[in-house]
């Protein structure tokens, strides 16, 4: 007979393993598309257009956009995985399998979030490997790259979980990524330095949290950043705490799960 802690650990492993198996089984829908999309970005923006753009802070345009594209892939894939998986479980009502079992809410949240994090990081790794076909990269700080990668993947996975909790139909799963995440990501310094913007837009951009995340990650790879790295970490951690509390409150209340 297992102790309660062992039971909880088995429940967590079960959710996580199920999540990983799910996205690995449909790898042509989850892992291959970002690799193809980013390869096109590297060819079109990096090689064709990038070759006509002056270096930014001493780095070629291709090298400059690699961290942003990696982080963009990590964030969107972590988010999409958790949002679609959680909503899918609600839609098929298989989420009830977990709800009737003695699985604490934090384990439900952690299981789904780690599943999304794993996919986000795996896609990020694939994009880094693809980028090496086009350019040369040296890592400025492994600790910043790894910690920011994990934190961002977890943060967006958590945001995806909240989206999945609220979602009532399939459209609700794609609404936030399409109308909020994508614009914020494109305006979040993935393809440009905010120093290239007019002063007013530079100030407005500061309020875009994705800029802080992308630029902190860029600092980890290239050693250059338009934002304060400590502030970037602080912001991600603060948002992580807020979203964690929010998701646990929603699960406790049974929002979108229990009538």
């Amino acid at each position: 007979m297992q102790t309660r802690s062992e039971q909880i650990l088995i429940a967590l492993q079960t959710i996580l393993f199920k999540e990983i198996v799910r996205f690995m089984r449909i790898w042509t829908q989850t892992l291959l598309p970002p690799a193809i999309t980013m390869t096109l970005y590297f060819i079109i923006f990096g090689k064709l257009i990038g070759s006509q753009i002056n270096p930014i802070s001493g780095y070629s345009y291709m090298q400059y956009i690699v961290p942003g594209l990696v982080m963009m892939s990590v964030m969107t894939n972590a988010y999409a995985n958790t949002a679609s998986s959680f909503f899918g479980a609600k839609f098929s009502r298989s989420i009830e399998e977990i709800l009737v079992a003695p699985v604490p809410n934090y384990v439900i949240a952690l299981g789904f979030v780690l599943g999304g994090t794993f996919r986000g990081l795996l896609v990020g790794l694939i994009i880094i490997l693809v980028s090496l076909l086009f350019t040369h990269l040296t890592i400025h700080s492994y600790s910043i790259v790894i910690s920011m990668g994990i934190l961002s993947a977890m943060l967006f996975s958590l945001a995806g979980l909240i989206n999945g909790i609220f979602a009532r139909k399939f459209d609700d799963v794609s609404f936030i990524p399409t109308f909020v995440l994508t614009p914020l990501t494109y305006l979040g310094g993935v393809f440009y330095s905010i120093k290239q913007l007019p002063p007013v837009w530079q100030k407005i951009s500061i309020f875009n949290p994705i800029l802080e995340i992308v630029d902190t990650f860029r600092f980890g790879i290239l050693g250059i950043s338009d934002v304060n790295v400590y502030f970037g970490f602080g912001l991600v951690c603060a948002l992580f705490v807020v979203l964690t509390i929010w998701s646990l409150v929603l699960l406790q209340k049974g929002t979108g799960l229990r009538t």
Partner: protein
Amino acid sequence: MQALSVKNLSKKYANGQVALKGIDLEVSEGDFFALLGQNGAGKSTTIGIISSLINKTAGQITVFGHDMDTHLDAAKLCLGVVPQEMNFNPFEKIADVVINQAGYYGIPRKIAEKRMEHYFKKLGIWEKHKQAGLRLSGGMKRRLLIARALINQPKLLILDEPTAGVDIELRHMLWQYLRELNEQGTTIILTTHYLEEAEHLCKNVAIIDHGEIIENTNMKELIARLDSQTMILDLDKPPISHLMLPDYHARMVDETTMEIKIHKTQSLNILFNELTQKGFNVTGIRNKTNRLEELFMELIAANKKSST
């Protein structure tokens, strides 16, 4: 010990619909308990609240002494629930559906695999264990839900219409298996629209109507309350003229089939003698409807009358 104790349980949905109006229910350990009611009476809401899928508005539930407000996990460890609707991922292999369910209960994989094999073989779906759920027939999906609910070897098994839409052979097989489980000590709560199923299997019964328990008693006592039964008799030949049976309400359904209402004080022997004297042999006899069904309809009608 009480396997389940429900006190003053009420549920009001966000749209204002009151599904439960403060019901009380006690199910003893080892009982085979029927929870009956019409569609929308509140059966599934009650089960939904017990299985943590619906939030209650008020009331208290304890499962084997574990209060669901304060010791939810301990209460859940005692429970197994077979829902009315299919609620598994249809694209998953059915073995994985059950093994994962075991994982949510903290059961190690090796033990879960053994149990899965045992229950799948017992329920006759072992040959399909590598197939996805969507490839199973309706009856097999029902058996999968039962196997999944049993994987944590619950002390209290709740079945919400487990035989809905399954063929007679399978229904009898499931009855046999449920009886076996009950004999081995599992407390069972059953909701069903097949009242002969409830009469056949259950020791105690509660009838719920419009969110209220209108009857909660022993099955035999309830059946004994039936004043009269309507029987169908098959006669060996058609009567030449109107068949006179002055002590009974009788009518011919067709040439050789007679429908006759028999009060509980009347003896079937006297009726048969009377028919024999008139030159008829009874070649077959059966209840027009199930006895519990007659009583159920009477109770629901009486409750409707008293509430208007």
